[in-house]
């Protein structure tokens, strides 16, 4: 790989003052766009969380009126009691918002945008205006998605996976307009993601600063780069599938209509061909971010940098050939199931490598427990649970029983909340001073961390046990089944945990907004980090670097014998 030099195509933004609108609303600055994504996706994270609370209420106290539920229209709740059709919409939209409008934009939209140019020493993205379009298209998609709640017939109610023919025939789901808005919203969002990843890939390939060779890239950038490739190749497949489903709903086409020879299983194949890479889109950037934070917190180089990079690559590659493990019980040929099982099992290997390498990084470190580090450690310990529980359903016979039960719900939440979301919290605490020039309160941060960690486990760990009883996913009222009735106490416990988990976010929300104005001024390099982003003022000016930095080291030269300090910024030249 050659040493790259920066070409100042963006001409460092021109030095005239921009109007407020151009600077903060229709901005082409990757940092502003990243912050716009941050506010948008935190909003959707909250919306998704509130939807989950309504679901949890119904599951913990089936048939009881939601407190304050009287304000809900009669199409959603009858006298405050959530109706089954609305419950299905809650299930669907909780998943959709969390996956597509919270976790994915938080990782890819926020930190992809914010970190890539800063960490590789570039003035901005390769295509700043496409970058701006990418945000505003995503924003539009979010509006379309929210609009679905006001559609006659209610919002989409076929699950975030929207299996056809339930999603294709409004006579089966009772939903037409909501489903159409859901489909259009996701198609629009897909366009935004494709434009974004095109930008990331071009930027990483072409705009690295001199000396920033491929194997001097921080793992966060590696992960975001490979994620961008996954998004680029997976999203259009989803778009194709969504378009077919949309046409089935609106133009009367027959792609998934059995009576005309259409094939319902084709939807599942297309969806999961996208969907499994999507799972890695949601976790790889988190792994990259956590690697950065753990090395920083341990004051040690990351253990086995090269194998970490190859593990990301291996996970991304294997992600394309395992989609069938979502379909073991779908009626797909059981022989295919066996081959999908083997490829799925193999994914455990790179995941194990990553976990052990993080532990290797901690080993003989000098571990600082700042809030980002605490969240990163939570990521590792919780991701392990999510990863290990995945082995149960990877095993086809065990999956016969576990498929579509709460075991799966526990698994995905250990990966996406215990994994991705803890990494996101860590990232927010870590780069907040860079984004806003002020520190978040460490004390409140730690309170938030401890409460979240405890109640998160109280909420999601018992779901494993529910799964073992055979408790199905996406059911409105478990007490209808005799075999589930004895476990209603567990359901109630989970509900209590979920409410406390939501309440635990209050310190975070307070901390976030309070620190915007009142937080302590951030020093130049508060975490004594090696990244290039800490060599410029916080927040960095338009164009980022006054002079193009030259990179001399890899990203993890902590406690290097070359210096007496315990860190060595990537651009700092050491003469022996």
């Amino acid at each position: 790989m050659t040493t790259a030099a920066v070409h100042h195509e963006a001409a460092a933004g021109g030095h005239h003052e921009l109007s407020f609108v151009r600077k903060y609303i229709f901005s082409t600055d990757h940092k502003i766009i990243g912050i716009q994504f941050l506010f948008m996706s935190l909003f959707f994270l909250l919306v998704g969380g509130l939807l989950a609370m309504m679901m949890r209420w119904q599951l913990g106290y089936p048939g009881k009126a939601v407190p304050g539920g009287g304000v809900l229209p009669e199409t959603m709740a009858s006298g405050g009691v959530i109706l089954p059709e609305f419950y299905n919409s809650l299930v669907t939209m909780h998943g959709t918002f969390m996956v597509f409008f919270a976790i994915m934009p938080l990782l890819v939209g926020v930190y992809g945008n914010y970190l890539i140019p800063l960490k590789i020493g570039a003035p901005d993205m390769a295509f700043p205006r496409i970058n701006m379009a990418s945000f505003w298209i995503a924003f539009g998609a979010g509006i379309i998605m929210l609009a679905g709640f006001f559609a006659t017939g209610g919002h989409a109610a076929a699950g975030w996976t929207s299996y056809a023919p339930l999603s294709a025939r409004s006579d089966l789901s009772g939903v037409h307009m909501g489903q159409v808005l859901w489909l259009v919203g996701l198609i629009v969002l897909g366009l935004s993601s494709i434009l974004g990843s095109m930008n990331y890939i071009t930027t990483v390939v072409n705009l690295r600063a001199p000396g920033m060779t491929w194997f001097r890239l921080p793992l966060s950038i590696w992960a975001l780069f490979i994620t961008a490739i996954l998004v680029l190749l997976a999203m259009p497949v989803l778009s194709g599938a969504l378009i077919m489903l949309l046409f089935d709903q609106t133009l009367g086409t027959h792609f998934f209509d059995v009576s005309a020879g259409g094939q319902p299983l084709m939807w599942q194949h297309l969806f999961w061909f996208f969907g499994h890479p999507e799972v890695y889109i949601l976790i790889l950037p988190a792994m990259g971010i956590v690697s950065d934070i753990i090395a920083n917190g341990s004051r040690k180089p990351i253990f086995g940098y090269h194998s970490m990079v190859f593990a990301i690559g291996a996970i991304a590659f294997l992600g394309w050939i395992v989609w069938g493990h979502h379909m073991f019980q779908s009626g797909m040929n059981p022989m295919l199931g066996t081959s999908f099982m083997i490829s799925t099992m193999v994914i455990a290997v790179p995941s194990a490598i990553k976990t052990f390498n993080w532990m290797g990084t901690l080993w003989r470190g000098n571990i600082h427990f700042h809030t980002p580090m605490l969240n990163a450690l939570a990521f590792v310990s919780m991701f392990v649970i999510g990863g290990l529980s995945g082995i149960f359903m990877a095993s086809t016979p065990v999956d016969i029983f576990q498929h579509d039960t709460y075991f799966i719900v526990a698994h995905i939440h250990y990966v996406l909340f215990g994994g991705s979301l803890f990494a996101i919290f860590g990232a927010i605490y870590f780069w907040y001073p860079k984004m806003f020039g002020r520190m978040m309160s460490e004390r409140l941060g730690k309170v938030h961390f401890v409460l979240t960690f405890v109640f998160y486990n109280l909420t999601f760990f018992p779901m494993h046990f529910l799964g073992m009883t055979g408790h199905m996913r996406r059911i409105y009222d478990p007490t209808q089944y005799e075999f589930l009735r004895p476990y209603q106490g567990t359901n109630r416990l989970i509900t209590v945990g979920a409410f406390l988990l939501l309440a635990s976010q209050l310190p975070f929300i307070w901390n976030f907004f309070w620190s915007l104005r009142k937080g302590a001024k951030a020093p130049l390099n508060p975490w004594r980090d090696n990244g290039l982003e800490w060599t410029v003022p916080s927040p960095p000016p338009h164009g980022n670097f006054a002079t193009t930095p030259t990179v001399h080291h890899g990203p993890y030269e902590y406690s290097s014998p070359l210096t007496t300090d315990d860190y060595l910024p990537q651009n700092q030249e050491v003469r022996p």
Partner: protein
Amino acid sequence: MRRMMLAVGTVALCVACGGGGGGDQAGGAEGGDQAAPAAAAALGTASVSGNVLFTGTAPANPAIDMAEEPACRDKHPEGPRDPEVVVTDGKLANVFVYVKSGLPAGQTFPAPSAPAVIDQDGCLYHPRVLGVMVGQPLEIRNSDPVLHNIKAVPTVNRGFNISQPQAGMTTTRTFSDPEVMVPLECNVHGWMNAFLGVVAHPFFAVSGTDGTFTIGGLPAGTYELEAWHEKFGTRTASVTVTDGGTATVEFSFAAN
């Protein structure tokens, strides 16, 4: 290049939105409230009354196995049957009779604000056949402590599919266009069927267990009446009425 990408994006957006515009006409739950309940009084003073006869042996109504739904089964001590054909002494019930044509063209009739009520009790619809005016609220009740869903499968009107998971729940819907008949079904209990006759005027009736029906408040004139039964199809009759008078009509169905 950048502009080109933007253009591609924008057009894709437009196409996507255009493709999503295929929503149905709204037939929401509003309307009907402002209709004067006494409006029918001003229409006329003639009436039609009659009888629905049944000849031959009525087919036996099939038994329903409600074993898996004890809350409903227990409401039928003699064993639940599906009341498809209700014949008493040669008289046929559950026949929907309405004025099919003959009303002055262009005349509109305000819908009453009082709802037509259909109840779900013992996992059966009561009544099984019901007339409702365009714009008149249809109130659906659940008297069973089990989930019912109510799926209307019209061909002209906008369909709906709603649920009532608990006893005591009520839901109100209206229909925007005349349609004879709109079937209602429950997918949790596949045997449950009801039929709604949606008409644009108040001149309709359903035959009782004694086979009789009365349509009142008609203006003088000559009308074509139609009688509809779920198993035996339709019969028509022509009738002329004068102000203040009552005409009688007889419909006859036979076992087929």
